[in-house]
């Protein structure tokens, strides 16, 4: 046992002083005053008559003195705030969680955050009576909402308009910050954590966890992604995962919107702890700002406690246009297939008419049976029937009337497109270099080779389109689409995952950053850090989705309860001492004042 309010020596001195005072008062009380009476014989007889039954009258004052000393000792001890274990006096840091789960509704309509704030106030008021306090908000980022102070009233202003962040609280960071504050204060200290999660880290300062919340039911969107359709240029597909974190069956309607346009609606029925995936595609938009929301949630015999996990945000990858330079003496297949692609800006030039300075504005150069030295320096190039040795692709032999027998469809330049069976009437097998990928071959002859080296990407096709039936196959435009995107450094299958709330948002020079509600955000050193809310953020023409759906979790708190059992096993020692005090005062009153025993 120790004392939190006073050092041990001060407690002992106070107890000694209290005992001395009690003894002095006892002696004063025991000093009789003279009273003249008519006859003392009646008093003597009365004293004999009222003799106590089980305690001699002479012992009662001594007993009462001992009881009074005990009362004084306990009183001083209680004022010193006794604690089981190591009590502390000095700096107290209260850390409260403001993560998304703290927004869960508890009984009577209150939220866990409201409970946590109430507990924070209570702890801070207690702590401010015997030392300095500081309050840290453990949201997405730790934040000191009340610096070290001895003024408990400042807390009200600090906690006004408090809300939860759209993400998991960074309790570890907050505790590390609290630990640093305690160390820097140069005083004894302790950390009180008010949270609905178990503590993830240990601290040097003594740590006490006050749990808030009870196990609650919720269903949540646990994933929302959007990706461009690799086949349908300009379209995108949406994939949403919904998970039930309850033992009850649940019904809800999943509504997917692109800004204000409803893309899809689906009635869901979830079993206990069930999981559903909803996929939809065919949505056309150059810039998809996708929001998925669970509406009309009905839980059998319960309610969805957390609204924050019923909505998720995603952004479809922007439809990027690729500038392509086609250098050809005339190739109708290539010209048509490139012109038909909706996301290409194609420039056609003759082999001798390409100005050197204009190359940099093209992302990909397509060379059809030509290989000017100046163009071969371009970092992304697609070569059809290159001359022997051009761009490092030497001929390994001639190929005639050969069919492609193997395709490396998993390569990014093909993206799943298979060229098997395509006939090459006339061409050359290419000799690759170590590190090259053979995309298509006939037996041991490499007909299509991809090379990625030193920031350059090259795809070389060892035959001309006119000498093959490749252009007649449905795989041709797909191959061109995949190859051009690979060469341009793009990926058709990439899914741009939403960012976690709190992730900094880089803002380029001169660009305007807007928040989820369209409010202007002010970048500091080119970065916006106030991204604690989920939603769509805009930087210039770009859209960034901030979403906490992957962090959705169960709202049960059994793990914290088990960790806290030892702390809650006994009532506070001061309460026990106060109860004993009350009992002793009653005994003392019986002994001295009520007089039944005397």
């Amino acid at each position, binding site marked *: 046992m120790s004392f939190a309010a006073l050092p041990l020596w001060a407690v002992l001195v106070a107890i000694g002083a209290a005992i001395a005072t009690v003894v002095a008062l006892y002696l004063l*009380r*025991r*000093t*009789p*005053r*003279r*009273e*003249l*009476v*008519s*006859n*003392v*014989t*009646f*008093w*003597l*007889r*009365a*004293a004999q*008559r*009222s003799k106590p039954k089980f305690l001699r*009258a002479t012992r009662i*004052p001594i007993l009462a003195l001992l009881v009074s000393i005990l009362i004084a000792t306990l009183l001083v001890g209680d004022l010193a705030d006794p604690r089981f274990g190591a009590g502390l006096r000095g700096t107290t840091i209260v850390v409260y969680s403001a993560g998304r789960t703290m927004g869960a509704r508890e009984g009577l309509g209150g939220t866990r955050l409201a409970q946590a704030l109430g507990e924070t106030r209570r702890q801070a008021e207690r702590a401010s009576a015997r030392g300095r306090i500081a309050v840290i908000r453990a949201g997405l980022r730790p934040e000191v909402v009340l610096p070290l102070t001895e003024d408990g009233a400042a807390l009200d202003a600090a906690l006004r308009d408090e809300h939860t962040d759209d993400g998991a609280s960074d309790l570890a960071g907050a505790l590390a910050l609290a630990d640093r504050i305690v160390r820097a204060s140069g005083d004894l200290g302790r950390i009180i954590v008010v949270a609905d999660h178990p503590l993830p880290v240990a601290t040097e300062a003594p740590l006490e966890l006050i749990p808030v919340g009870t196990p609650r039911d919720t269903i949540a969107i646990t994933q929302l992604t959007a990706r461009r359709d690799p086949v349908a240029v300009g379209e995108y597909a949406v994939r949403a995962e919904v998970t039930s974190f309850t033992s009850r069956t649940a019904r809800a309607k999943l509504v997917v919107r692109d800004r204000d346009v409803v893309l899809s609606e689906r009635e869901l029925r979830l079993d206990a702890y069930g999981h559903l995936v909803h996929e939809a595609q065919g949505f056309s938009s150059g810039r998809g700002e996708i929001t998925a929301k669970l509406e009309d949630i009905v839980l059998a015999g319960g309610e969805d406690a957390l609204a924050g996990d019923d909505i998720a945000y995603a952004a479809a990858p922007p439809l990027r246009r690729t500038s392509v330079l086609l250098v050809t003496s005339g190739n109708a297949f290539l010209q048509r297939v490139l012109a038909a692609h909706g996301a290409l800006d194609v420039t056609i030039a003759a082999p001798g008419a390409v100005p050197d300075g204009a190359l940099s504005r093209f992302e990909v150069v397509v060379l059809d049976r030509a290989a000017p030295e100046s163009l071969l320096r371009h970092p992304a190039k697609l070569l059809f029937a290159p001359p022997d040795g051009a761009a490092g692709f030497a001929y390994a032999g001639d190929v005639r009337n050969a069919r492609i027998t193997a395709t490396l469809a998993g390569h990014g330049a093909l993206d799943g497109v298979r060229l098997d069976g395509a006939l090459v009437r006339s061409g050359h097998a290419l000799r690759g270099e170590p590190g090259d990928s053979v995309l298509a071959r006939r037996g041991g002859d490499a007909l299509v080779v991809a090379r990625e080296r030193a920031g350059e990407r090259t795809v070389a096709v060892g035959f001309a389109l006119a000498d093959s039936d490749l252009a007649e196959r449905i795989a041709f435009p797909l191959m061109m689409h995949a190859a051009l995107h690979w060469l341009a450094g793009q990926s058709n299958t990439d899914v741009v995952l939403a960012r976690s709330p709190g992730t900094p948002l880089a803002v380029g020079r001169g660009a305007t950053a807007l928040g989820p509600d369209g409010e202007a955000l002010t970048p500091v050193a080119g970065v916006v850090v106030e991204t604690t809310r989920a939603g769509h953020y805009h930087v210039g023409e770009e859209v960034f989705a901030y979403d906490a759906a992957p962090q959705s979790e169960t709202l049960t708190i059994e793990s914290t309860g088990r960790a806290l059992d030892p702390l809650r096993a006994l009532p506070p020692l001061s309460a026990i001492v106060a109860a004993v005090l009350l009992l002793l005062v009653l005994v003392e009153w019986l002994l001295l004042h*009520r*007089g*039944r025993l*005397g």
Partner: protein
Amino acid sequence: MRLLDRAALRLLDRVRLVVRATATSSDQGGHRSPALAQGQEFADHRQYVPGDDVRRVDWKAFARHRQLVVRQFIEDRDVRVYILVDTSGSMTRGAPAKVEVAKRIAAAFSYAGTKDFDRVRVLPFSSDMDVTLRAVRSRGEMPGLDAQLADAGVGGETKFPEVVRDFARRYPQRGLAIVVSDLMAPDGWEDGLRLLGGLGHQLVLVRVACAEDDAPDMRGEVELVDSESGQTVPLRMTPALIEAYRAEVREHVARCREACRRAGGRSVVADVSMSSDALVRVLLGGADAGAQERAR
């Protein structure tokens, strides 16, 4: 008078002491006696016996019945009033002091007694009896008694049995014996009162009570000092002890009153807080079986 105010005197002027016939003396006075002898009021006839005064023979009766009978008359005799006033140390307690009230009581009885020219003798006592105060018979002697009584000293221990024995030896003639005391001595009262009754006195016991004796209010540690003996007793006052003390006093007083009743007497309680007027009414009402107030 120093001890009685005008209101008390006016009240006393309208009353007289009524004494049982058996308590009268042998001298002629104003109170009926059980003896049939010379007097004013005819009582009865009886047979003449040799030696009777022939002047008391009823000759008219002899003429009618031819028998010698003599006439008998009720004899009015004198009454001696003894007022024993406790002046021990315990009588100094109370507010006003019990002894002051006791003196007023003695003066009131004396004043009432002198109305019928009874011989009134006030006898202050503590451990012994003070017989220096003159007996009085008339109202004219009252101022002297009043002064003497007012100046009478106070102190000493109460030794009532010894006082009663001395009283019996000194004053053998029976009469109205009025004992005025606080009864705050634990022993001897029953014997003394029985002795007084046995001597043929008509007994009146007046207890002068005060709150200090009957309902003390003390708390904590005290050292009690006996006002008569000076004995000290350290005690811790508790409600239980005080209750036991009150019960002790209550029972003691009840025993004294019972002893008085057994001795043929009556007892009265006079509280020190009473006014003189109320005091006289209570005293004479109790003293008489008593005290009859008669309209003039």
